[in-house]
């Protein structure tokens, strides 16, 4: 009976390892950080330019986004758990920081051309 259990567990572990592999295949450095709040595009920032901006999240929540040396990170947040701050900095394409309470998503994308005009307004 243990054989089946071991087989299934091995399957789970193998699938997990495969997931890691698929998701961790080295991705190229991104060019901009796109911010979305509640699924809506909020702003986008060039990773080449150092800056610190406050993001207005859901229900008055705020996250302080810092871009320095081509990496984006959340340095301050109003959310209770501050998990977004613990997620560290992101710089590769497809990497992201998510703040669930404020519904803020910071995504790294590849091309600078994607920058919308409201980048400055943010």
């Amino acid at each position, binding site marked *: 009976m243990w054989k*089946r259990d071991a087989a299934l567990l091995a399957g789970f572990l193998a699938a997990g390892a495969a997931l890691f592999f698929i*998701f*961790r295949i080295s991705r190229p450095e991104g060019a901009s950080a796109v911010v979305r709040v509640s699924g809506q595009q909020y702003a986008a920032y060039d990773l080449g330019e150092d800056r610190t901006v406050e993001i207005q999240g859901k229900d008055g929540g705020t996250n302080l986004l810092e871009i320095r040396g081509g990496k984006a990170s959340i340095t301050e947040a109003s959310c209770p758990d501050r998990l977004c701050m613990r997620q560290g900095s992101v710089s590769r394409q497809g990497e992201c920081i998510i703040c*669930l309470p404020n519904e803020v998503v910071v*995504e790294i994308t590849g091309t600078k051309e994607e920058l919308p005009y409201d980048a400055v307004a943010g």
Partner: protein
Amino acid sequence: MMLLRGEERQSSGTGKTGSENCRRDSSSASWIASRGLLIALAMILSWAEAQIPVFFAVPGMKLGLTNLVVLIALYRLSAADALLLNLVRILLVSLTFGNMFSMIYSLAGGILSFLAMLFLKRSGRFRMITVSIAGGVFHNVGQIIVAIVVLGSRYAAYYLPVLWMSGIAAGAVIGLISGLVLQRLPRDSGRSI
């Protein structure tokens, strides 16, 4: 409806002699009391888990203490009981400690995890700890799916590898503890706990 019928069958099976008929008269009261107790226990465990300071960097990574109650109900009572307990617990915990938002996450995780555990248990081929591991993994899969939908970002899927692995670990721990609890829980109290 079908689930409820299974419950009736289970309780009517107990009445044979006169004294047992007496017990059957009070069975709906004891049914309500025992389920209420289990739901309360599940709620307390939810609360207790929320008190543990978050030291994980990944949202959604947790032990899932309440799954202890669900798992034990699944093994000692019935699938219907486990499902009922799971749904009522999620509803109550979301209303007391959380919000609509956390309820959607919990429901997706809770239902998917329950279905995975039920499927493996019904197959009769796996041990409790394996059933629990599947529950842990699919709980997190359900939450990721909701995150992708709610946040409108497929990048939420990037948490999948980490949450997949943590689901295995959490499920193993909960499965072990459930096994220990079941060993110590007298068999004959199985029907009412």
